[in-house]
């Protein structure tokens, strides 16, 4: 920003301001003070698309997964359990099985949440301390687990009621928290009252948020914050006084308004009210009306400020999020002043909506700085890249069933963890959103595989949701570990040299998997050769044609003539000599040429292969093996 003096007039903020980390809420509230309680787990059964899942929550939990994997259903289930603004739910919120025409009457949607006491630094502790706000709030609703540590379980059930002829919701405390295998058998106790949920209520900001709407919608965070501006009676009186002065001045100065008033005064003659006065107030007279019209103008750097309405959805959506942050910290400091506690619980659906990649990168800090516990569902690789690995939850839909997985980082050493962070998360956060991960060795494959995939499926790899990842030097471990732990589908196309196969096996063993040659999702190129070797073995015709088309007629023969007998590349530290004579001499030469000029040749060769007249030859066998396996795995989706 230019160092210009702030001039009087509407306060403006720039986009750059919005992207800055939030100022510390208030000195009184102190730095992130623990609310004394945290939601550690949510379980959902038969709600919308979810059959039976458990999600463990941290301070910040990031839900990732392909579209339609069940992220929104999960957030809706959470909202159903303890949401601040609860909708009326009905039959359509109960899970409908794949082959069912209608929801069976006795099927009930159940959502359990588990809360635990936490200490000043947010760590889970054994029991609520003496004099805790939460002890008094929940009373004997607090239960003890098998270790006799304090826990609060709440069960929300949506089920058909014969008496009411409608779906009804009940909320009860749980007397126990059972293992996930038989969680639905847990015994419940007293009813949970609305007042007992209010201080932990979930605020849900869905993908449709828009500050411009918030400014106008009753009950929005904006309106809840601004409806009472917190002024003293004296302030109000003075300001309203000033308002009427402004009104008077306006009317006095404006010929139009004066004219209007004079004409309207005629009314007095018709309606025989004594001393009926006509007054025109171009500006609201009362402060409470004025605050309803609060507008936000935004100066997007350099230009003049203009109202938010005129800004794009991205800005409005982000602004809405920031208003929630203001609301949350305000509410927290108010509760603390009154000696109460609130546990701010926020669910945000796709905070990155409408934001350009750069802003998506800055977004993470914004969400991180909202006080309280946050659950974020995202499709933004930038957002994921900044998240801690342990905070990620991957939702994967398998047939009609959603599964949730999280990483067990305790099995990794520091070095492996670093690798995972650096090599996967930071650069390839998008992998978490793919349906299948196809890993391979080199650059040629990277260029060629998308071409084969498009030929095989008749759709681009992007459309199919496939990710291709080159893992030079058989560096498969971080990717396979991640995919394996997240329950994602992964495939390897590996070169066939003994050294390489041994390296692959070494990597797989680290993940706890057996021999690469026995796994159906791994294709090892036959004949102890690499990808280029595989091509020359099968496609000399297509290669010859491509070389001629790309390099020019006779160029290949020239290559052979010039380089035959010259030193070749090192193999296992030893220099080799090129030998382009004999029956397979031409193949060896083609292999060397393809390797040396990958960037130039990989794509054209692949294009030539997929255009062959024999359909059976259009995909190299080693790749076809992988594709067939993928097709088989995905056939039910």
């Amino acid at each position, binding site marked *: 920003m230019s160092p210009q003096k702030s001039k009087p007039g509407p306060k403006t903020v720039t986009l750059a301001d919005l992207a800055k980390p939030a100022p510390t809420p208030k000195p009184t509230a102190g730095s992130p003070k623990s609310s004394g309680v945290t939601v550690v787990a949510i379980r959902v059964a038969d709600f919308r698309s979810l059959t039976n899942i458990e999600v463990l929550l941290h301070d910040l939990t990031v839900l990732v997964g392909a579209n339609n994997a069940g992220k929104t259903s999960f957030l809706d289930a959470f909202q159903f359990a303890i949401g601040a603004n609860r909708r009326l739910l009905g039959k359509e919120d109960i899970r409908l099985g794949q082959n069912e025409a209608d929801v069976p009457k006795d099927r009930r949607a159940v959502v359990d949440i588990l809360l635990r006491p936490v200490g000043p630094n947010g760590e889970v502790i*054994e*029991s*609520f*301390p*003496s*004099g*805790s*706000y*939460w*002890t*008094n*709030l929940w*009373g*004997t609703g*607090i*239960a*003890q687990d098998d270790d*006799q*540590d*304090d826990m609060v379980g709440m069960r929300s059930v949506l*089920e058909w*009621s*014969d*008496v009411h002829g409608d779906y*009804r919701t*009940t909320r*009860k405390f749980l*007397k*126990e928290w059972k293992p996930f295998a038989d969680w639905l058998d847990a*015994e*419940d*106790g*007293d*009813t949970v*009252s609305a007042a007992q949920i209010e201080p932990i209520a979930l605020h849900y900001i869905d993908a449709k948020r828009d500050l411009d709407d918030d400014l106008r919608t009753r009950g929005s965070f904006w309106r809840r914050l601004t409806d009472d501006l917190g002024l003293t009676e004296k302030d109000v009186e003075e300001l309203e006084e000033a308002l009427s002065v402004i009104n008077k001045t306006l009317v006095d100065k404006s010929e139009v308004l004066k004219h209007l008033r004079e004409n309207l005064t005629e009314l007095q003659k018709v309606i025989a009210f004594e001393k009926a006065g006509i007054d025109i107030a171009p500006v609201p007279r009362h402060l409470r009306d004025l605050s309803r019209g609060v507008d936000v103008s935004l100066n997007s750097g350099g230009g003049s400020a203009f109202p938010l309405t005129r800004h794009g959805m991205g800005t409005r959506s982000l602004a809405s999020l920031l208003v929630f942050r203001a609301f949350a910290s305000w509410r927290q400091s108010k509760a603390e002043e009154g*000696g109460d506690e609130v546990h701010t619980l926020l669910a945000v659906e796709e905070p990155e909506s409408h934001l350009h990649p750069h802003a998506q990168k800055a977004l993470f800090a914004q969400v991180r700085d909202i006080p309280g516990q946050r659950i974020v569902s995202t499709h933004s690789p930038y957002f994921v890249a900044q998240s801690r690995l342990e905070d990620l939850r991957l939702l994967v839909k398998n047939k009609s069933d959603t599964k949730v997985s999280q990483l067990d980082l305790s099995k990794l050493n520091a070095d492996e963890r670093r690798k995972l962070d650096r090599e996967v998360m930071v650069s390839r956060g998008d992998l978490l959103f793919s349906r299948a991960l196809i890993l391979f060795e080199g650059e040629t494959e990277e260029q060629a595989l998308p071409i084969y995939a498009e030929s095989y499926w008749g759709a681009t790899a992007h459309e199919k949701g496939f990710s291709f990842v080159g893992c030079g030097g058989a560096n498969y471990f971080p990717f396979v570990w991640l995919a394996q732990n997240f329950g994602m589908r992964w495939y390897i196309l590996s070169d066939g040299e003994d050294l390489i196969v041994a390296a692959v096996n070494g990597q797989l063993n680290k993940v706890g998997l057996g021999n690469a040659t026995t796994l159906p999702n791994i294709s090892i190129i036959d004949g102890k050769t690499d990808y280029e070797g595989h091509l020359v073995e099968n496609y000399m015709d297509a290669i010859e044609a491509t070389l001629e088309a790309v390099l020019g007629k006779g160029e290949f023969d020239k290559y052979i003539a010039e380089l035959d007998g010259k030193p070749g590349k090192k193999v296992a530290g030893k220099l080799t000599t090129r030998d382009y004579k004999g029956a397979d001499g031409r193949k060896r030469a083609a292999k060397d040429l393809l390797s040396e000029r990958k960037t130039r040749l990989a794509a054209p060769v692949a294009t030539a292969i997929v255009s062959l007249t024999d359909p059976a030859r259009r995909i190299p066998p080693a790749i076809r093996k992988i594709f067939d396996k993928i097709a088989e795995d995905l056939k039910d989706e």
Partner: protein
Amino acid sequence: MMATIVPKIRLSGTQQRVVEFGDGPLLVVAGPGTGKTRVLTERVRRLLSIQKEHFRVLALTFTNKAAREMEERLDDLGELGTRTFIGTLHGFCLDMLSDRGKPVGVNSTPQIFEQFSDRRQVLAEAVAADPLLNHELMMAGDAKARTRKLDDWLRAISNIKNHPMTIPEIEDPQEQRIFDAYNAGLEASGAFDFDDLLLLAYRLLTENEKIAAFYRRLYRYVCIDEAQDLNEAQYAVVKALCGSEFNNVMMVGDPNQSIYGFTTSSPRYMDDFQREFRATKIALDENFRSSRVVVDIAHALEPSYSVKGQLPIAGTAKVLVGDDEEGEAKLVVDEIQRLFQTGHPDIEGPITPASCAVLGRTRYTLLAVEKELGSRDIPFYRRVTSLHENESKLADDFQLALRTLANPRDQLHMSALLNRWDFKLDGEVISEPAQVVALMAECAKVSGEARCQAIADAIDVIAKQNNQLKIKPAIDVLRKHADTLAANERGAVYDDTEVMLNEWDQYLRTAASKTRALPGFLSSMALGTSQQIKSDGTALLTVHSSKGLEFEVVFIVGMAEGVFPDYRAQNKPKEMAEEKRNAFVAVTRSRRLLYFSYAKQRMMPWGDIRLSKPSPFLTQIQAYL
């Protein structure tokens, strides 16, 4: 600002001391009319208004009636009321066990066998299954002697359960065997007896430090009313709740009003409390309730009772002597009617039936007065037993059926019900409510009896409520069946179901925040929390059931030797002391006027006529009559 709306209640100096007392143990000795409930309420209010502190207050007492009264007085706490648990110690233990009784083997709301006959049945079956014990029982003699033996054993069991501290282990192997057999029998039915509640709660708190600690964190202050009625098991639970550190306990009681000797309660636990907790003792010794004559007579009965401040109202005390019991009753009711007509200078406003109470040492002494009141159309109500007994078979059937529905494993009540319908349960294993419903439907079908059908239908209605329990639809089914019966039987069903609806209503009130469920309702009925107080009409009360109540005018009938004090107390100092406390309680129920009456001669149950002398208590208080 509040003060202008709700004037601050004026408290005396000692009352103020109790209200202002801070942390630490406190023993309040409060005689009749000292305003102890008000002091208790004010103290709870003061504790709860400590700003920025989050805790609850536990207010316990020992009878349901006292709990209800405390609840009424604390009613005006408004929102603060949600931060107080008011109830009986038994009720508190029941909640504690149903919420977190797992470590001591209680998995949900326990079913309580409160009836002596139920417990006897459990023991009888357990003994029959054990050859050794069965032999021992047979040795006792004929059927009557065997029943007596069983009752002795039951009392012994109860005694053990009531003394968790002084009888931690049973030494006699046979006693142990009986004890174990009985408990196994209860367990097989998935039930507990009344004494178990305390014993299990005691074990839960002593064996699970963290659970006890939880309650100490939840309830920073514990108030115990009617502390003179504590027995060992109850005191043990209180001590277990406190552990070694916690001592914000206030006990309020009056040793002179301890009259529940038959439940092994004793005012000595007040002394134990003072000693063991090193409690500060404050005596409330002003009586702002009773007229001078009432205080004087109370003092004459119990010289240790002295009063520092009192009302400047004289009051009167009179003796009415009838020729026989009917004559006595006539005199009493004459006087009541006279008071209705003329009023009394010591009593403000008119005297209504509700201002008067007739007290008797036993239920029997009240019968003549009841008849007389009835014949003169003076409204009255009795409260002689804490548990309602059904007049109709249908209501009995229904309650048995509810029990089995709540606890399908409860074979005892299931077979009792089937017996009444001339069926037998032959070895069928029942464990699901649906089986209970099906079984009853089957009985109704086979027997073709309308009564069975009505029960089966009513149970079906209840079983189908998958969520919130409602009792009314089932009662409608029963009443519909009653409409087909003769007038007498029909009326009985209507009356019984009316009582059930009242109990249901009370249950809903006390369980406002709780889940409405069948086991909870049945437990509530068993604990008697759902008993209602009526207040229109003259009260006919036994001395025991009059505790905690007060009336402008009190008639104490049957003041004859051998009746009050009871003839069985003669020459037994401990029992005699208890009788004296009974008299003390009876007298101090009066605010203004006292009447004592007796009959010169009494008709004995076997037809003899016996001359009677006035009660020695009357001689003791002669100076004031």
